[in-house]
């Protein structure tokens, strides 16, 4: 009865509950981002070292340091700086780099695009492969195939990604010489060249994220195999593969989508090491460089973008999982 009551409103307006839920999640996402921005700002504030001494050198006199701090606005109290920063972001202005005074949005945009390119390329390889392997492993549970898929993915996830990267470089760049070991791309690099140069980094990422998604697909499907409707399908004489694809997979989508989203977020955020290894000009590289230079405004901006990606992808996962639930999509 409570369930019925819950969905009753859908009678007059089918999409209404879903829209409401999406708006709620969106609002929640904004709140999360706000909290994250506070965390980012304060933790960057606590970073040891100082941009002024970093730029002016150890020999700078206290007067020049103070003057520099005044010039870039670091002398103001943190709370005031935080709110002017926040107000800027709200208007799409991330401020200027402390190190070279260029606008941050300009610094970041091409880098972000590169990172997203790499992440999408890895995702395009990893997601279909992971779901396929997951379905196969569930279909032939306990078989040699199942075990080898498990061993393989678990092995690759157990190594740190830089190690996987170097192994790939050793095999494909050094020994076979088919792919470049350095992915130096620029804005004018043609598309297929870009793809070619990004093969090794995206392959590394694929190997790193696949295990999670594949194992979740397998577990979610196997979990459903004990349900009465699967038994019903078996007793209807449906073949094993059809049972898994038609009866189990659609109902297992919600958990799978969630793990995929989490891994997508990792692809964007977790590329830092991989970008460094392949000298790939992405956002991760920029972040690492900026931390080294104590360029705190850039660090803050890139961290916030990373956080935003996480929130957005998780939101997307939530909405998609809701859409796969027929109870919500087709109210009584």
């Amino acid at each position: 009865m409570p369930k019925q009551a819950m969905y009753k409103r859908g009678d007059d307006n089918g999409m209404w509950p879903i829209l409401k839920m999406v708006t709620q999640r969106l609002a929640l996402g904004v709140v999360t981002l706000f909290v994250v921005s506070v965390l980012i700002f304060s933790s960057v504030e606590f970073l040891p070292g100082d941009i002024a001494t970093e730029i002016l050198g150890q020999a700078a006199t206290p007067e020049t340091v103070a003057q520099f701090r005044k010039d870039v606005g670091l002398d103001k109290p943190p709370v005031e700086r935080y709110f002017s920063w926040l107000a800027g972001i709200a208007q799409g202005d991330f401020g200027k780099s402390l190190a070279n005074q260029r606008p941050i949005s300009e610094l970041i945009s091409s880098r972000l695009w590169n990172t997203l390119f790499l992440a999408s390329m890895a995702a395009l390889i990893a997601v279909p492969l992971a779901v396929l392997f997951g379905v196969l492993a569930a279909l032939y549970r306990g078989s040699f195939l199942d075990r080898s898929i498990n061993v393989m993915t678990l092995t690759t996830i157990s190594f740190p990604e830089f190690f996987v990267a170097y192994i790939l470089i050793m095999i494909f760049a050094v020994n076979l010489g088919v792919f470049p070991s350095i992915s130096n791309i620029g804005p004018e690099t043609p598309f297929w060249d870009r793809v070619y140069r990004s093969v090794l980094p995206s392959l590394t990422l694929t190997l790193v994220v696949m295990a999670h998604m594949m194992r979740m697909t397998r577990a979610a499907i196997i979990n459903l195999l004990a349900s009465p409707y699967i038994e019903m399908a078996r007793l209807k004489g449906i073949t094993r593969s059809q049972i898994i694809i038609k009866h189990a997979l659609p109902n297992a989508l919600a958990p799978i989508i969630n793990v995929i989203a989490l891994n997508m977020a990792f692809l964007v955020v977790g590329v830092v090491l991989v970008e460094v290894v392949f000298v790939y000009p992405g956002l991760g590289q920029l972040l690492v460089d900026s931390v080294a230079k104590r360029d705190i405004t850039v660090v803050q901006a890139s961290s916030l973008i990373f956080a935003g990606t996480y929130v957005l992808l998780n939101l997307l996962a939530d909405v998609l999982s809701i859409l796969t639930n027929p109870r919500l999509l087709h109210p009584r």
Partner: protein
Amino acid sequence: MTDTNANGQSGDILLQMRGIKIDGMADDVWNPIIKGIDLNLHRGEVLGLIGESGAGKSTLGLAAMGYARDGCRITEGSILFDGIELSTASDEAKRKLRGSRIAYVAQSAAASFNPAHKLIDQYSETPIHHDVLDQETARKDAVELYEKLRLPNPSEIGFRYPHQVSGGQLQRAMTAMAMSCRPDLIVFDEPTTALDVTTQIEVLDAIRNIVRQFNTAAIYITHDLAVVAQMADRIMVLRYGELVEEAVTEDMLSDPKEDYTKSLWAVRSFQKPQKPLAGPEETSVIRIENVTAGYTSGDMVLHNVAFDIHRKRTVAVVGESGSGKSTTARCITGLLAPKEGRILSNGEELPADYRQRSKDQLRQCQMIYQMADTALNPRQRIRDIIGRPLEFYLGLTGAKKRERVRELLSQIELEPDEYIDRFPGELSGGQKQRISIARALAAEPEFIICDEVTSALDQIVAEGILKLLFRLQEELNLSYMFITHDLATVRSIADEVVVMLQGRVVEQGPKDQMFTPPHHEYTDLLLSSVPEMDPEWLTKLLEDREKNKPGIELAGN
């Protein structure tokens, strides 16, 4: 069906099972579930398999399809289906038979339909998969069968998702699905057990008609004798995986040979003496005063519900699922604050929200649930389960607490030394329900809500529970509110009856009065829907109802 196959011998044999033995895995050991059973089924015949849970009915029924559930294996015996030996047939050969020549109808239609697909797609799946029909013909055929099974709106209902259709309709849609390839044999596994009595009738009628119309043979599995009497030509009684008795339905009903069969027949005999109504001057233990309540969103579920429960009385609240029985209980316990009206305990108003009630007020009202399995924490020992309320409400600790737990265990007729250190998983269903009772008693309440406490139990076990509750009522001056949809239970234990329909009380009064006409028409419908042992009962009832139309139409059927 009785007319087509009166002696159960005519017609050629469709299914012949010989010396079937099936093992099940429990605690890493193979235990026998079916210990050598023979079964014959003729074309067009309906065979009833009856027994309590754990008797092996479903396992045997599934074995007729050459199928064993995970954790089960058919170890011995031959299953000859229309000349094909299923016990040695390849998986592929068996798969081709399933759905097309042998079909299955499961107990819970809600769980057995895939929530992600429309009903009609699940219907068409079988004939398309087995290359019997193409999609368009299959869909037309589905609509035709939906019509034959008297589903409302047959041309549209198939395009709904399972959750959009009521339980009774789903069960008929599943019967249609089983019929999709016009199989020679259908295994019905308790198809009406999860339904209300009023809905059950329509499903029974639909199944009986369709099986007769297509001359399909059926194995009908149930624990309800009265139901099997309506459906089967011949009955086999099973117990502990062995055949107890087998006979043509009429003979089985009129002249059961074995003691066990007789005990099944006699089980509904327990009846406690009805107490007189409490005088007007007596304050009721619980008074529900014009309660209107609903959940956060949506309409009100209860409308102006009012009744009293007096000391040492049992008030049975009956009605079908969704009638508001359990919601009433939630209002009394304070889990759901009513929108209007109030709850009084011994003349004193209780706060609407349980969080505002004093510990003593909470202690006075305890609950026992339908599923003891989920109501008991599987990780706690019995001593802790019963000990917790002792500590929480009465502040007992150490030796005193231990002594009291032992006392309570003796009170519910379980040997303290043997049971005090067990986990719920090491008990039978009936024993678990006894532990739930002990836990409720530990608080020393004056009022207990029993929510369908016997419906998950076999009849013999259920009767034991009812007797125990009655004895405790006498000894401890308890009042019960008994939520149930089983009128046999009402007959045996109630003093007063409250009939609910769509959130309203439609009739209430002392039991004897409620079971003698004239009734409110809904009460009448409810009472007449309880299956009786007479094999002609369903036929007569439907004829009667046909004559007396228009009767009242029930929502959701």
